[in-house]
């Protein structure tokens, strides 16, 4: 069993979506700005783009020894393949977060704490779908505050090209506002896509 003090997250999608960058930003935020220990490892295949890809993040008050996330408590899926591959690993009481437009879930998933956001569509509306990962981080920060939002904002600023900083912060805030409004029950999420 993983150490109880450790928070285990799995962010998954396909190569090119910035999945590893999202994990890197989260770990950086926890380490440099929240002054915790964090370990981020990545899984990917030989393909440069399009293949299944994931980043595993462990955040802890103490040094992390075993860096693998086997049973995440928070699972983020940004592709159907990532969902199919990883949903079985999520802890029964875990939080399942996905991109509304990219993942068809099953009704049986609804025993998890479930949240979804059209992150890629929102990023497109903000001008660049490559920011879907940052929208997702904003959403995650509202749903599961494992790292302070301000810490993530600082880590985003450290991690993206200078000319895109403003847009990325906007993307983060968009995702966070959407998440906050859902957790407060201010808006009803648009229906997700189920298959059964």
């Amino acid at each position, binding site marked *: 069993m993983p150490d109880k003090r450790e928070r285990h997250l799995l962010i998954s999608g396909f190569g090119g979506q910035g999945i590893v960058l999202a994990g890197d930003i989260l*770990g*950086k935020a926890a380490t440099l700005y929240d002054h915790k220990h964090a*370990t981020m490892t990545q899984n990917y295949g*030989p393909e440069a783009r399009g293949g299944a890809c994931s980043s595993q993040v462990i955040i802890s008050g103490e040094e992390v020894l*075993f860096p693998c996330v086997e049973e995440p408590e928070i699972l983020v899926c940004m592709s159907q393949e990532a969902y199919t591959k990883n949903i079985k690993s999520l802890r029964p009481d875990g939080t399942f977060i996905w991109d509304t437009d990219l993942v068809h879930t099953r009704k049986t998933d609804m025993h998890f704490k479930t949240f979804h956001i059209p992150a890629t569509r929102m990023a497109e509306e903000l001008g660049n779908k490559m920011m879907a990962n940052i929208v997702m981080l904003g959403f995650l920060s509202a749903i599961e505050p494992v790292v302070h939002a301000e810490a993530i904002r600082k880590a985003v600023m450290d991690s993206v090209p200078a000319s895109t900083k403003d847009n990325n912060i906007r993307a983060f805030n968009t995702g966070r506002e959407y998440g906050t409004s859902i957790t407060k029950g201010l808006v009803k999420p648009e229906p997700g896509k189920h298959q059964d």
Partner: protein
Amino acid sequence: MVAKEVLTGMHFMNGDEACCEGALAAGCRFFAGYPITPATEIAESMSRRLPQLGGIYIQMEDEIASMAAILGASWGGVKSMTSTSGPGFSLMMENIGLGICTETPCVVCNVQRAGPSTGLPTLIAQGDMMQARWGSHGHYEIIALSPSSPQEMFDMTIRAFNLSETYRLPVLMMADEVVGHMNERVVIPYEDEIEIISRRKPSVSREEYLPYKADDDWIAPMANCGDGYRIHVTGLTHDERGYPAMNAEAQERMVTRLVNKIRKNRDKIIATKNLYMDDVEVVVVSYGISARSAMKAVRDARSEGIRAGLIKLETVWPFPEELFRSVAGSAKALIMAEINGGQMVLELERSVRGACPVKLVSNFGGAIIHPRTILDAISKAAKGKL
């Protein structure tokens, strides 16, 4: 803005990037390499950072040429390195031998992935440990280090350069895919807190200087090309002048010194980290990423009341055989955790000479060893059921 040589401060970076920063902090200003997963980020970081510092980055046609280029750069007086993974490490073998024979300081970082051959390019193994020891032909001694975290990638790369400059040979960093690709906190100290060692220069006149005549510690002072001293660099067996000498006596004299400069200085080179070793019954031995699984298993065993301890090899070559011989007398068992079919465990068995049972916990690569697997072996060993 002027780029900094030493990025003092706290960072969240991966092991490959930390290796690059460690090299730069150690004074490396020449990198020749060929990108290969999972070592590519070392080359990539070097290609960005070295030009900022007035250094040289060359992407070579292959790993044979890469290794040759860093030897040449070192003789030119510049601290140099290359990085690679399994297939490239195989190609480097002949010129690593040239570096040993010509006593050329440099660093080679092998971020190990699973083989044989192309194997699993993006997944871990620790299968090149014996290749590191014996992969080049002929008889020689080698120094190899094994980092377990991005922080150790930084720290040990500096040590690798210091060892290579002290003992005049290629020093191997035997990293692995998980450590290379893992992001963690890396604290980079102030520049004046980092110990930097550079090759010993000749202290005699140009007329008296012999490039392969050792001091009392078996190490020969090194003049760089262009310093004005007469030098000759050849992979043929040579005398103290560096001239080829094709006979058994010259061979005996040269190889004795190449071997002794490491063997006679083993105590200064070997480094281990020992945990919970005071009252230990079951000793786990490991290195690289596997040592972290081992540490977790040892801590879990302690919480179950089993007197387990860990010896983490920071230098894997030379192997600390005296240490294990002394530990074996009082231990119930030694357990080696490594990601290969059993390589360093052979050295462990050889060292303890049957004084206690030695058990291997391993897989052939693709995944790191689970702490539970090691804990099971510890439990069995504590009950005398290995």
